[in-house]
């Protein structure tokens, strides 16, 4: 009886200990990335190459989805606002919702599935084919050579992608609101400019997207580095990257919004 109780408690304790251990490992890994990133800043070419593969190649999906999200916001916002006779405020609604929330969050989710999964798969396969061990054999630190450039490329790319997403979204809202529905162009822009503040709205959005960039690339490089070196392990790690970083983005977004936009 006592033995069964103990084994049940062990069954409860083991996953908790395992998760905590993994979390601690991930934190130590993050500290190692920061520690070794000095070397990768001396060889900027590595970072540029990763900005190309995670930033530049995410451009199409970010720009197109930004445009469509903005156009949908324009249509739906107009439908609601015109019931209250406030359709002139469409520009404000589109711009604020994009700059504060949708730009960073949706760009972050897209970035996690487009670039994060690619990073995990790449590093996981490098591990599975023992390229990382080979680097260590040649006295090349794989964290400095492989992981840190990918991390910094993601952190640099993410705010730029989120800003592009928001800008495309505002343009999409403009296309629908002014060109298609026929709102007054002056009211659309001037009300937007009167209500959107650079420090409060745009800069906070940029901070958000930089935080999401850190979260996504950290999870992506960690899952890749920690993946089981088998085909199955790499595919599982890729899935976990997308799921964990999407959930982490949403949770962090709630915390950041509560800190930034509470009150007024």
């Amino acid at each position, binding site marked *: 009886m006592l033995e069964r109780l103990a084994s049940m408690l062990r069954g409860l304790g083991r996953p908790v200990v395992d998760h905590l251990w993994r979390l601690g490992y991930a934190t130590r890994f993050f500290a190692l990335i920061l520690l070794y990133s000095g070397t990768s800043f001396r060889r900027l070419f590595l970072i540029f190459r990763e900005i*190309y593969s995670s930033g*530049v190649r995410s*451009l199409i999906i970010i720009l197109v989805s930004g445009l469509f999200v903005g156009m949908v916001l324009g249509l739906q916002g107009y439908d609601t606002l015109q019931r209250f006779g406030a359709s002139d405020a469409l520009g404000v609604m589109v711009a604020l919702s994009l*700059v504060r929330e949708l730009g960073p969050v949706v760009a972050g989710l897209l970035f996690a599935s487009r670039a994060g999964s690619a990073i995990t798969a790449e590093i996981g396969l490098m591990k599975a084919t023992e390229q990382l061990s080979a680097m260590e054999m040649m006295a090349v630190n794989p964290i400095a050579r492989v992981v840190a450039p990918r991390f910094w490329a993601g952190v640099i790319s993410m*705010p730029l992608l989120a*800003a592009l997403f928001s800008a495309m979204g505002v343009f999409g809202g403009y296309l629908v609101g002014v060109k298609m529905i026929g709102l007054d162009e002056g009211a659309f822009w001037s009300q937007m400019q009167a209500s959107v*503040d*650079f420090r409060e*709205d*745009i800069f906070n959005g940029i901070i958000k997207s930089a935080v999401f960039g850190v979260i996504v690339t950290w999870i992506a490089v960690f899952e890749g580095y920690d993946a089981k070196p088998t085909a199955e392990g790499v595919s599982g790690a890729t899935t976990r990257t997308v799921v964990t970083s999407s959930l982490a983005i949403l949770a962090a977004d709630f915390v950041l919004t509560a800190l930034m936009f509470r009150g007024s």
Partner: protein
Amino acid sequence: MNRLTLDLWVGLFVAIGFAAILFLALKVGNLGAASVSETYVLNAKFDNIGGLKVRAPIKSAGVSVGRVKEIKFDPQSYQAVVVLAIDGRYKFPRDTFANIRTSGLLGEQYVGLSVGGDPEMFKSGDSVKKTESAMVLEDLIGQFIFSKAAEGNTKK
């Protein structure tokens, strides 16, 4: 991939990324015009500020001339002290009237300045003597019902 092509793409990406931030700052956030060069502050005491908020605009003749910087409560006179930051380019006479108005029926509240005729101008830190409180809709409805009831009584 060729180093030159790669640099070109990354450069292009970073350039349009910063262009997007610039677009958001200037066209969406209106950073250029909103940052007023020099401001001076005036204090105004109101009996009731209604729903006035910090950063609400200050308008004279309908033109935005500043922003509400701070709202405090004065425990001596039990009044609200509104600190107005006004664009240094605009000077107002010392008998200027400050009142809290609403743009539209349900719009945001702002401070309106009605210019007087005093030859002397406000200096920074002065307080506005003549103020008028916010129009509170509930009070107006209450007064209306009260006067209607009074009318009904006199008719009988």
